[in-house]
């Protein structure tokens, strides 16, 4: 069971904000235990040391937005026994996938004087669009508890058990008051997968879906309710077009409401 050799952990970065890999460094209580349990074989944000592959577990942050990255992820996959994507960018394309709904040339011209210098694809895509992914951790950013649980489970030779249910259930378990029912606030909780601890409703705001769609999500039913609550089609589009805009359930629903 417990391998005699310490497993090698690698952390890779694609287009992202670094927040998900920072989550690992934010595990102040567990970090030294992690370092005891695994070899941090490749983790540039934390160490200069580099151990050669193959790696037992690769954590991949970020989305694919350049041709170079599309090739690089293939190389990462080849060196990784288990590939775990971490965060909204890696699992759905992230906020930068908003470009998928627009003309990326326009975007580049808005920001850069010389877009011709840029090497960039028209889309931001999740890692799973490019290579096989063994497991995914959702969230923008990922949840520290889920990350530690994942590492602890992998060390024992199994994939972790993560919730497949909505944020609502988590919200109720925490004893929060439903912001939609009690205040009429638009909330993506009913269609978003649990994992964050129902943070937004806990702070009396609507969930913005940063953990992405729940496997059972029925966004059409939610949109109908949002419209009753006074949300315009444009607002509904923006609600789904957040940090997981490119996740199929959200993407398709947002398209249904495009003015």
């Amino acid at each position: 069971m417990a391998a005699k050799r310490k497993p090698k952990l690698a952390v890779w970065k694609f287009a992202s904000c670094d927040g998900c890999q920072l989550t690992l460094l934010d595990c102040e209580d567990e970090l030294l235990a992690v370092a005891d349990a695994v070899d941090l074989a490749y983790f540039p944000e934390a160490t200069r040391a580099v151990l050669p592959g193959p790696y037992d577990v690769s954590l991949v942050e970020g989305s694919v937005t350049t041709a170079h990255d599309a090739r690089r992820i293939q190389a990462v996959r080849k060196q990784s026994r288990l590939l775990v994507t971490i965060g909204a960018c890696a699992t759905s394309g992230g906020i930068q996938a908003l470009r998928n709904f627009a003309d990326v040339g326009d975007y580049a011209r808005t920001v850069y004087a010389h877009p011709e210098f840029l090497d960039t694809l028209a889309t931001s895509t999740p890692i799973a669009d490019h290579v096989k992914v063994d497991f995914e951790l959702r969230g923008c950013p990922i949840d520290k508890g889920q990350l530690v649980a994942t590492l602890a489970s992998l060390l024992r030779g199994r994939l972790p058990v993560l919730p497949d249910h909505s944020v609502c259930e988590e919200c109720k378990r925490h004893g929060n008051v439903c912001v939609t029912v009690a205040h009429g606030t638009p909330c993506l909780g009913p269609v978003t997968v649990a994992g964050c601890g129902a943070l937004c409703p806990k702070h009396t705001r609507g969930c913005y879906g940063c953990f992405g769609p729940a496997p059972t999500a029925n966004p059409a039913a939610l949109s109908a309710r949002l419209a009753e609550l006074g949300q315009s089609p444009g607002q509904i589009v923006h609600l789904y077009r957040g940090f997981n805009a490119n996740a199929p359930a959200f993407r398709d629903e947002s398209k249904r409401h495009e003015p």
Partner: protein
Amino acid sequence: MPQAASHGVPMLPRPFRIARARREIRNVFTWELVPDDGGPQLGFVPGQFNMLYLHGVGEVPISISGDPAGGALTHTIRAVGAVTDVLQKLRRDDSIGVRGPYGVGWPVVEAEGNDILIVAGGLGLAPLRPAIHHVLAHRERYGSVGIYYGARTPADILFRKELERWRGRFDLFVEVTVDAAERGWGGRVGVVPKLIDPKRHNFDPAHTVALLCGPEMMMRYSVEALERHGVDSRRIYVSMERNMHCAIGLCGHCQLGSEFICKDGPVFPFARLAPVFHLREL
């Protein structure tokens, strides 16, 4: 029913040690477990199951596959997923948690005086093995006894040596079939329900108790065959499987209509399940 040895706290396992581990077939293995806390060995009735707990990995319901007359606590397990895959890697002397036994077993006592048919598919033979042991140990209390067993391929035949030993006895019949033969297989090819034949196997449908365990599809067609031959659905028993987190009627996961598989079953007279057995997604 023997008492569950849970120290009054539900869902608390006891530590057991793997005294013997052997591979049966490709991804199926059998363990013999002994208590590791100085406490007594668990007693059970055929058809009951335990919850096996692997530290930090999880817990799974697994039927008891050993001889109810005594000896080590025996489980036969197929590696199919997150927990069982890790269980497969354990070795002799490794420690696991056990709680149980749970559930309603096979009606081996109630069935005395009747003919007994054991109808098993795949790993379904494991939960039936204690019943076979019991019946053979008290052979004189029963009429005809027979075993119909189906496996996918010859390589998937469980307890092969034991089946051969049983086949060698003159006081029961054993029919084994496979879905797909391989080279060198001289036996039957086909599905279990097709084997069922009172005349050929000399049992009296009016006084037969049939014990079924296997994939639901296989059980469904076997029940149909048995009923066609005149076995009353109140005397056809099936063992069911559903997701279980507690095994004691508290977690709600194993509900099938009105039944909790864990405490009302896993063994049911088919008549009781007949209204819901065929319903999809129940």
